[in-house]
């Protein structure tokens, strides 16, 4: 088991991590030969799946007996702090390594328990002057996940998707406009297969409907269009809605603000997915899954 990374520019890593930081602190970092996946998930809560291409790292070496996949669980807060500190320094390289956790008094019973415990060690050297330099080392405790646990962590699959919509940064005023409605727990997102987008919030004594006047670019879903054409004209604009928690929406809206390109996927009554490309060279992406409110069965 071996992990050796080098980072010179933290932009991609930091923006990805800080995008998902509000969701939760404990994340899974899965190093595969091509990607670093950062996974933030919990049962019945929104999930974020981030993929950072190994191209981002000047040095990227992962070795393990499991097809060179290495999976650890950690609190991302100290990781973010360490990256920010490195950013502020005038150092030009940060090396990240996985090391065994140093145990002060290793007893026979603790050694077994600690086998999965390790540290992610981040080291960089700052040049103070021509002659002298200062080294910094951060040790972030991680838990190495066993193969069977790692294999249990799978990206959610949508059983159906009705609307795939491309959002660019022009849409942000719409998302900002709805920010002033904070009283309701839920927001309903409706998209039509021709590209209309509408957000609505219903409160006890107020109903709000916000819609984007232009048609957004949509990707036609083949299966869907064929099904529809059986009983209606293809021109008909069918609305598809999903109701999600307002606080989950807000995180999604914030994510959209950070990203370069976003595709919104509506799985009717089931989920809202935001697939975000973080930067122009498309080396990082975040997929944010928000489960829909369970509809009352009538």
């Amino acid at each position: 088991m071996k992990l050796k990374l080098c980072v010179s520019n933290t932009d991609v890593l930091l923006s990805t991590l800080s995008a998902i930081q509000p969701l939760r602190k404990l994340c899974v970092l899965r190093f595969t030969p091509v990607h670093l996946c950062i996974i933030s998930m919990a049962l019945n809560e929104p999930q974020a799946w981030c993929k950072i291409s190994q191209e981002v790292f000047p040095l990227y070496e992962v070795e393990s007996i499991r097809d060179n996949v290495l999976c650890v669980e950690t609190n991302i807060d100290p990781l973010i702090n360490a990256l920010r500190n490195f950013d502020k320094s005038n150092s030009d390289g940060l090396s990240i390594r996985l090391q065994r956790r140093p145990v002060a008094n290793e007893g026979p019973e603790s050694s077994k328990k600690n086998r999965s415990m390790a540290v992610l060690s981040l080291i960089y050297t700052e040049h103070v002057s021509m002659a002298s330099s200062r080294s910094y080392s951060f040790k972030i405790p991680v838990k190495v996940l066993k193969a069977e646990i790692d294999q249990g962590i799978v990206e959610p699959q949508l059983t159906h998707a009705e609307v795939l919509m491309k959002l660019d940064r022009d849409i942000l005023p719409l998302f900002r406009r709805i920010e002033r409605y904070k009283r309701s727990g839920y927001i309903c997102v409706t998209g039509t297969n021709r590209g209309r987008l509408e957000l609505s919030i219903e409160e006890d004594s107020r109903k709000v409907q916000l819609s984007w006047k232009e048609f957004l670019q949509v990707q036609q879903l083949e299966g869907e269009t064929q099904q529809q054409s059986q009983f209606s004209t293809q021109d008909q604009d069918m609305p598809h809605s999903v109701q999600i928690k307002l606080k989950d929406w807000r995180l999604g809206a914030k994510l959209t603000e950070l990203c370069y390109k976003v595709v919104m996927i509506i799985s009717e009554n089931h989920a809202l997915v935001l697939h975000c490309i973080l930067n122009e060279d498309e080396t990082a992406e975040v997929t944010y899954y928000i489960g829909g409110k369970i509809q009352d069965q009538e």
Partner: protein
Amino acid sequence: MSSHDLVFLATTNALSHISSVLGCIASIGTTAKVTINSHGVHFTAYNDNQTIRVALTLAKSLFTSFILNADHNAQESNTQISVTQDSDQLEESEISLSLDVQLFVESVNIHTSHQTTFGGNNASTNTDKNEIECTFSYQGDGHPFAVIFEDNAILERVEFQTYADQEDFEERFSLDETELVLSTLLSGSLLYDVMKDLKDVNTDALIVYVKDNPIPSNRKLVFISQSEIGHSKHQYPSQKIYLQDLSVWKPQKMNDNLEFNQTISDSLTCYYRFETWAKIFRSFKISNRIKLQKSISGLTSTSLLVRNPHDQSYTGSVIDFRFWENVNDEEIDNLNWEYCYNNTHVEQLVEDDQNIKIIQYALSNNLDPNQITLDDYLKRRETRSHARPQATETPFIILDDNSHKEPEPSTTRRTPAPSTIDIPLFL
């Protein structure tokens, strides 16, 4: 929805103005009664225990279109009269409804500024393009009150649940113009400054002292603060630009009736708990002029004229706060009004001018740099306790300051001295 079904339909571009004046309503009450007639849209709200009433009128001229089919409910159909064409006929017709004004303000309060700050491509056309047009529509009893905000990109439709008419306390707050004892016209921002200072010195009770004079510059309007730390006097400037008008009346018993005669020889004092003013004075800041009136019964009205800075042709919206003078019923009632005139105790407070430091109030552009404001005064007291600022000639605002009697003026806040009437103001 055709305009046929509508009772009311009006459109405006003055969203920021509406949002700022409506904010003044929402600071007082949660539910507002909305009355719409040929003059415009009126909002009325009360605070929880009905001691303050606020009324706001959005004049018809604020709207680019204004259609009121007030007869719709009664006549059901075809007499669709547009007020714009035939205002005489509809002079008396009006509709009313109640809605949650907090929610209403929340919706109307759209911050458009940051819409133009992002993205490079709309930098050139962000002036007209992002102007939001706002439309009010109402279909009558039992229907929601709908507001539509529309700009080039976003269509926002908000529906507010309407309630049956709330209890009306209007009668209690009706000001009898024939029984006025005080009427004065003040500058909004200057009165705001005075109120803010009164709040900063933790005023509990506020005494308003007025005395008319044939020479306008000798008129007197003094706000006297009573608080834990003593009294302070804030003299409102008598120059015409600040104090545009001042009239004091004094009633006289004539048989069974009271006759009100304007007086220049009698001073009038009004007594308020400051918490009432504290609730409303923030609104003074946005107003251009304030008319302060009080009737013999103690009912006080501050009428704020708020112009729309983006539309000079608009005459302005009027916000009217009404509340009561706070006097014990045993001390004074309608028949015992003598108490308000030439009150010797208050006269003493006002006249006792010896050894008084002067703090100036003026609009910032009229401020004499050699004179000191309350801020300067307080700062100087803190930093250089021994070098006291020079008293100046023009009496604008007067703070009681007897600290020179102290052997060593202290730099720290002190507990009040044993209770005499004129407790020096330690800050």
